[in-house]
């Protein structure tokens, strides 16, 4: 359940941002989570409710943007949708690929007041 650590990290980032902006609370938080980031969204949501109690995120609207996985084949150069880390290039069946999108794990924006 490393998702709990991730949520605690988000709470920490939110608390620091609120303090720095001289605000009191977070109205809305926008997260970016890549398909290949190693995060289970269900587990994250489960951890979320427990971890945000009595924090600046307690009443925040949560907006999660899922970023689809994309890779480039290091053999033929084909760019393709990668849903699992072991997906081969659909053109030449090569497993040596460079992930170009989908590892994101970010707090993108916060609306504070």
């Amino acid at each position, binding site marked *: 359940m490393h998702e709990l650590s991730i949520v605690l990290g988000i709470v920490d980032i939110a608390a*620091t941002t609120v303090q720095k902006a001289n605000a009191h609370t977070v109205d809305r938080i926008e997260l970016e989570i890549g398909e290949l980031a190693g995060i289970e969204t269900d587990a994250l949501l489960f951890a979320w409710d427990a971890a945000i109690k009595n924090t600046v995120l307690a009443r925040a609207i949560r907006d999660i943007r899922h970023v689809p996985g994309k890779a480039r084949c290091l053999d033929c150069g084909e760019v393709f949708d990668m849903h699992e880390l072991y997906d081969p290039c659909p053109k030449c069946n090569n497993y040596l690929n460079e992930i170009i999108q989908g590892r994101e794990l970010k707090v993108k*924006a916060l609306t504070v007041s």
Partner: protein
Amino acid sequence: MCSTCGCNQPADAVTITRIGEGLHLDLGHNHAHSHAPFSAHHHHHHHGEEHTHNGHSHHAVTIELEQDILQKNNLLAQRNRGYFEAKRILALNLVSSPGSGKTALLERTINDLKQDLSIAVIEGDQQTTHDADRIAQTGAPVVQINTGKGCHLDSDMVHKAVRKLDPPNDSLLMIENVGNLVCPALFDLGEGGRVVIISVTEGDDKPIKYPDMFFSANLCIINKIDLLPYVPFDVEKAKSYALQVNPQLRFFEVSALHGQGMDKWYDWLKTQFAHFRDYQHIH
């Protein structure tokens, strides 16, 4: 309970114990996060409809943060990495499911190599100093991290454990992570290399069931090969799955209990150790 984040970790959740000295470092409120002030590297852009007056506002402001959630862990991991490089310490992060034989592998490795290499150990478990006590029997300096409810080590825990361990220059530091094939994958500790261990009593499809761990590893040790006649584990199938996730992964098949195959692992350790001292990375 932590008053800032509201999590349910008790104040003494993470503890670090140096075996043999009766010392006990209570980390107090310190899990995957802390409440330190903003990193100096951030800049963020406000674009709310309302102005803030002397930084005091009652109106909503949107801040485009674009901050990596793991940034704090990654920054501290790089600090650990710099410390290891300066002291020419090759740190290896050993990851696996519980019961794959990480501690047994370390025990035999230390006993067989202690004349050739200086080896120190950080043990990670949720509870007890059982593993660190076993390592202490070999004579190697060892520190136990107990993560409480935590399912992985992070760079902050390792930073504090290293300070307590104070490993000598030109040594090998083995960091045995919490037995868990999922969570430790995301957390860089500042290690020079990552070694994933699977045992033949597990399923040979582990590499594609838990791909993140195999994706981030440099080496895969297949342990308990003395049991191969009694289990349906297909070594070639396991390797082929692991290579789908990570085509550059290398493998050693060993029995940490009886010693088969350990020579190749020792050669690898010695070669990587020498390479790391010269080039600050493994190959």
